[in-house]
Structures are given as structure tokens and as C-alpha cells.
């Protein structure tokens, strides 16, 4: 009878530990990249790649203005409606089009910053994105933003580990991440 009791208690303990395990956050960084500004997107990738170096699993969720950064300048897709075409042309297409959030000065500031970055040996946004890919940083692109702005999957950059998803996917990732950021 006593043995039975102990066994029952052990079983209870086991299921409790399993429940705690499920709730414990993983060593993971979940980041929302909302901004489409060069400086903020660059900072996002610096943090993302740094986090991988620190041994973390990293997932980035690109939404709203951020989605536009991941478009490929060389890729053109047809079949867009008038609004889609308008957004497509007016918003930056890819990393080479994105501007600083401050001191852009009609593009002059951004050009100056880029040459300064080169001089100071700071990696460019393009380099940071391919480094992130190499390091296994996962990227989700918000389907709703894409739909809103008329972006199509075919016009996004080739990035191993890029997927298209919605808010629930991000929240599921964020829920068990130790660190969450909104940029």
C-alpha cells in the first residue's frame, strides 16, 4: 500500500515537472521588426547575429514597413492591382533603397552614413542579412502586411529559413522566448 502511494506521488511529480518544463522559456530571442528604416533594421540584425553568437536561437518577424526591406530589387512580379503597384513603387524595394530614420537629408545623409560605415568597417545591411542566414536566424514575413501593400512572395529575397506567417506564429515563438524585442 505504501509502495503504491509513493509510486502515485512520483507520477504526480513527474507530470508536474513536465508542465514546468513546458512553461520554461527557451534560450531564444523573438524580435518584431516593424521599422523599415536603415538604422533600425541594421540594429535588428546586429542584435540577431550577436544573439546567435551568445548561443541563442533567433527568430525575426518582419511586419509593416519592415517587410519592404526584404524585397529583392531584381525581382519583378506582375498581376498587381493599382494600389499594389503604387505601394510597390513608392515603398523602398530592398536593402539598397532603405533610408536612415534621421538625418536622411534627401538621401545624402544615408549615402554619407553608408560610406562612413565602410570606412569604420561596420558591416552593411546586405552583409548582415547574409550573415544572419548563414548563422541560421529564422525570418517570418507578416502575410497581412504583404497583402495590405500588395507584395507577393515571389518578390522577396532568397533566404534560407524565411517563411510567411501571421501574428499567432510570432506569439507562439515569443511565448517561450527569454527575450522579446519590438523594433
Amino acid at each position: 500500500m505504501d509502495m503504491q502511494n509513493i509510486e502515485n506521488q512520483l507520477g504526480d511529480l513527474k507530470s508536474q515537472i513536465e508542465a514546468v518544463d513546458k512553461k520554461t522559456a527557451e534560450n531564444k530571442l523573438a524580435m518584431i521588426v516593424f521599422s523599415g528604416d536603415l538604422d533600425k533594421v541594421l540594429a535588428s540584425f546586429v542584435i540577431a547575429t550577436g544573439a546567435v553568437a551568445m548561443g541563442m536561437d533567433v527568430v525575426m518577424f518582419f511586419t509593416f514597413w519592415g517587410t519592404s526591406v526584404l524585397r529583392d530589387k531584381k525581382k519583378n512580379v506582375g498581376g498587381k492591382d493599382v494600389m499594389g503597384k503604387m505601394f510597390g513603387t513608392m515603398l523602398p524595394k530592398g536593402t539598397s533603397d532603405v533610408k536612415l530614420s534621421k538625418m536622411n537629408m534627401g538621401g545624402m545623409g544615408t549615402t554619407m552614413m553608408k560610406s562612413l560605415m565602410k570606412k569604420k568597417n561596420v558591416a552593411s545591411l546586405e552583409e548582415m542579412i547574409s550573415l544572419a542566414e548563414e548563422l541560421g536566424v529564422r525570418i517570418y514575413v507578416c502575410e497581412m502586411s504583404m497583402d495590405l501593400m500588395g507584395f507577393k512572395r515571389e518578390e522577396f529575397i532568397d533566404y534560407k529559413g524565411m517563411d510567411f506567417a501571421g501574428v499567432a506564429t510570432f506569439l507562439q515563438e515569443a511565448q517561450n522566448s527569454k527575450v522579446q524585442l519590438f523594433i
Partner: protein
Amino acid sequence: MSDDIQVAKVFDLKGLACPMPVVKISKGIKEVEVGQIVEALTTDPGSLSDFPAWAKTSGNEIVKTEQEDKLIKFFIKRLT
């Protein structure tokens, strides 16, 4: 000087800016065996606080740090 430290591999990270030194060393340290020591050379002043932070988080040990003008030398023992 650090003549007493047996260095298995040297990583020249001079001139690189954040986050590259930490990204490179985190990959590089895996090229040596656990217990071996690597030497990392940086010129990024931020690495003075970044390397200890990285070592602590990744479970490796900085056995020695040297500074000569702008050059910083880290001797890091791979523990994991």
C-alpha cells in the same frame, strides 16, 4: 607576457566592428578541442566588455586579457 599560455589557434579580428568580433569568435572557438586555448586579437573597444559577456553566456573562460595601445588580446579557453 603570456609565454606560459599554450595557444591552439589565433584569430585576428582587428578592425572589425560590433557584432563581428563576437560572432567570429563564437564560430572560431569550435575549431579547437574543449580545454584548448585560443587567442583573439581585437581593436574594437567594445569587445573589452563584450568578450567577457559572451564567454560567461556561452560557458567559456577568458583566462587572460592583455592590452597594448588599441590592441586587445584575449586568451579564451574552450569549456563547452
